[in-house]
């Protein structure tokens, strides 16, 4: 591992007046920052604040920027990721960047394969080394498994292992925990502590404030591509930092107060789901619960507990064979296609926004109106006036920040993209709204807005099921919380009973 930097006075990274422009956006606007050796430095900011862009410059991915970069006092200008790696910078990307077809070991060593000479691969050595590395992360997956067969959390661990392999003295982590829950996160933190011990400089990006305050020596806040402040966690608090991030107060109101629970809208009895090719017969086993109008039901659980599958089964998307009874508003249903679910008054905001939600080839308006097109037709033809009107209405209703329905969806920040997708479903006027990890990778400000939106919808009489990897989120938002563990229902807690403690306990049961 890297040696402790003997000269602690020269900052190991100096970012001097860096500006990055993209067509139509200034992603970074004269940002200057100095990071000292061995420090764990958190960078926070809203979606689109420019955090990832700054990190990509440091990692040699973005090369066309203005300004200067100094590593350990020497000016550098990385032309590729290789240059950055050679200078001792490695990065864990925000998005998963793995090759599905290759094995875990091959992915970890991608671009830096161990050779037995003459360009021939030394697969055995890579296999062994990869296994070792994964064990330090507390992960038991065999290194020759194809990555495609791993769950998202394990894939994230592979991504982390890939960055650790280089044993560089600067490590950038861009939202490494967005796909991890409790146990894995804790293991990762232990690894981070180890690295810190060895003097590795860590740049840590996260939207989860507890993590930031737990890990960071200093916190830098970016807003709209500008440097706002660098603070020490001891001298500030979460509210102050969020204020710096969004430029206004985020009130942590207790949402559930005064919601009136209505009649039952959804009842699930003995629901089971078989998975083809799985060792276990049932992926979900004997799940029964009810949902009422005006109620928010949370689902907690570890990665792979089956939360996504449960929502998918309800929405008629299950791959495998299902068994059990689902009744919606007193009517027995068994959806075989999301279309049927939609028509019956159900809506699902899926967890992987980019893969399962966005249509990057069409504009914001079309993204919003897609699922409710039928309502916007006159005589069989789409009325562009009605369409425009509907999109504008949704934009206003949800406070989506965009130049208008004609804007490209890719111009929007993650949180606003998420709101567009929620808007799409709200336009179908569902009775039951399923939100699968709706705040993943979304900044605190946008999160709060989504909470408020859910609360509002709930008050209007909608039944909502929400999953989340963050327990505090469920605790503030939900009337009741169900816990899944390995496809089984291991507990249901009312708002008053639920604590992080007993939820965790049920999740690992």
């Amino acid at each position, binding site marked *: 591992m890297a040696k402790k930097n003997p000269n602690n006075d020269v900052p190991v990274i100096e970012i001097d007046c860096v500006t990055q422009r993209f067509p139509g956006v200034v992603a970074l606007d004269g940002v200057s920052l100095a990071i000292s050796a061995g420090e764990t430095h958190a960078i926070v900011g809203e979606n689109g604040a420019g955090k990832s862009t700054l990190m990509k410059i440091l990692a040699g991915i973005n090369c066309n920027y203005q300004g200067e970069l100094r590593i350990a006092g020497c000016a550098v200008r990385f032309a590729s990721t290789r240059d950055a790696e050679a200078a001792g910078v490695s990065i864990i990307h925000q998005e998963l960047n793995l090759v599905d077809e290759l094995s875990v070991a091959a992915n970890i060593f991608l671009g830096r394969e161990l050779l037995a000479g003459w360009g021939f691969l030394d697969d055995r050595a890579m296999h062994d080394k990869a296994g070792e590395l994964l064990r330090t992360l507390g992960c038991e997956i065999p290194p020759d498994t194809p990555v495609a067969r791993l769950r998202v959390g394990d894939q994230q661990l592979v991504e982390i292992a890939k960055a650790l392999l280089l044993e560089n003295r600067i490590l950038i982590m861009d939202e490494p925990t967005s796909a991890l829950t409790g146990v894995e996160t804790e293991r990762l933190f232990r690894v981070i502590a180890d690295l810190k011990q060895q003097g590795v400089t860590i740049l840590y990006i996260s939207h989860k404030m507890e993590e930031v305050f737990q890990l960071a020596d200093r916190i830098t806040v970016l807003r709209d591509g500008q440097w706002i402040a660098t603070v020490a966690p001891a001298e500030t608090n979460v509210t102050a930092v969020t204020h710096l991030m969004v430029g206004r107060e985020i009130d942590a109101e207790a949402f559930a107060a005064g919601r009136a629970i209505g009649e039952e809208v959804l009842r699930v009895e003995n629901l089971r789901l078989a998975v083809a090719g799985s060792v276990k017969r049932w992926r979900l086993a004997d799940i029964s619960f009810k949902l009422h109008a005006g109620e928010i039901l949370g689902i907690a659980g570890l990665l792979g507990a089956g939360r996504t599958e449960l929502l998918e089964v309800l*929405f008629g998307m299950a791959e495998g064979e299902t068994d059990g009874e689902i009744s919606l508003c007193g009517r027995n249903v068994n959806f075989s296609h*999301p*279309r049927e679910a939609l028509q019956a008054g159900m809506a699902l905001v899926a967890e992987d926004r980019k893969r399962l*939600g966005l249509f990057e080839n*069409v504009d914001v308006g079309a993204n919003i109106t897609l*699922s409710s097109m*039928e309502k916007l037709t006159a005589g069989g033809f*789409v009325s562009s006036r009605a369409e425009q009107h509907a999109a504008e209405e949704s934009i206003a209703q949800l406070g989506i920040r965009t130049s208008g329905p004609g804007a490209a969806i890719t111009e929007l920040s993650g949180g606003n993209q998420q709101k567009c997708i929620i808007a799409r479903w709200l336009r179908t006027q569902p009775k039951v709204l399923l939100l699968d990890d709706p705040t993943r990778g979304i900044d605190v400000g946008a999160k709060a807005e989504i909470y408020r939106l859910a609360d509002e919808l709930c008050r209007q009489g909608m039944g909502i099921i929400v999953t989340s990897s963050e327990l505090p989120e469920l605790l503030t938002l939900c009337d009741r919380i169900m816990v899944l563990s390995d496809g089984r229902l291991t507990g249901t807690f009312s708002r008053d009973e639920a604590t992080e403690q007993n939820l965790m306990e049920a999740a690992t049961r």
Partner: protein
Amino acid sequence: MSRNDSNSSNFARWLQRYGNELGLLFAILVVVGITAGMDDSYRQKPSQNAAEILRQASLLGIFALGAATVIIAGGIDLSSGSVIAFSGAICTSIMIALAPVDDAGNLQTRDLGAGILCAAVVGTLLVAVLIGSFHAWLITVIGLPPFIATLASLVGLRSLARVLVQDVTAAVTTQGRNTQIYVNDASFRSWGSRWWIPLVIFLVLSGLMWILMSKTVIGRHLYALGGNEEAAKLSGIRTDRLKWLAYCVGTVTAAIAGILYSSYVGMSNPATQGMGYELNAIAAAVVGGCSLSGGIGTIPGVMLGALFLRVVIDSVAKTVKTNPDEFQGLIVGALVVLAVAFNELRDAGALKKQFFPGGLGVVNIFILSLLGGVITAVMSSDHKLVIGGSTAVVILGVLAFKKFLEMRSRN
């Protein structure tokens, strides 16, 4: 934002949105202009030439529309050339099967009557729907990649058409097995030969497709399907049915083109008819702005793409006075590359772009010079070596200078 500002940005957006169509229109005008300058037949027989180009562009455009629909929906249809041959065979087979027989026992295809013609067309289109449904089934239910499912049709259908034609002629005519079917009915013959009939069919189809793709829910859903299939399914879109529709549009338009081609040549000749046309249709769609990764493309773009290709081919025939057929591929290939490259580079700050980075760049400076030299050499009638050589040297000099500029701007 001021009113004015939003107006000008609206205009910019409009330009951005229809940039491809405008670029194609401009390119078509340039090609026509150059051709008119180099050869006087456009000036002396404008209507005759226009009619012929429009007829040809319409024939290509009809099944390019189908190819574009499939491409926009995120698939690809390689079968159209064979569907053209197959539908021609089916259409003429139905005609001779129903045709009256004269006293000598010979088939009379001179005057078939509306009933038989109608039956033939309807039968052919029905068969096309079946083929499209089969593609959709292979792709959505069996899970074959569209490339393979339609490739199998490409090789299989032509073969089936060849065998069928022989069996049908053996069964129906007195002369026994034949590899071709002739139909001489005058009104059938007129469909593909009168220039305005394909044109009207093309315009009507284009209009319908334009309404379908941009004014109806189905069109919206097709774009969504091509853009992100999984998300489309999750958004409550019946993606399987949409694919069914798209592949049927692909085969039905090809079948219409097949009927018209058969009518044009007065027969069905499945061994060679429509051979390789699938690539023309795909090229027209892509030149017209469709992206092969799906979700992008417009009907007017495809119309102009087809027109552009035919104008270029006609221009080659007009301006290259020796062996135009041999030069055609070269020029069409070069222009397709230029059209699509222009489209790609339009957005991407073309002027600042590095065209010759690294070793690949150096090699390609030589390739482009060589190519330029060879092409001018083969196109000139005398002193081939001198002309080709000097062209190559000039191009080499210009590109090397560009590379020098690029390298300097790097530092």
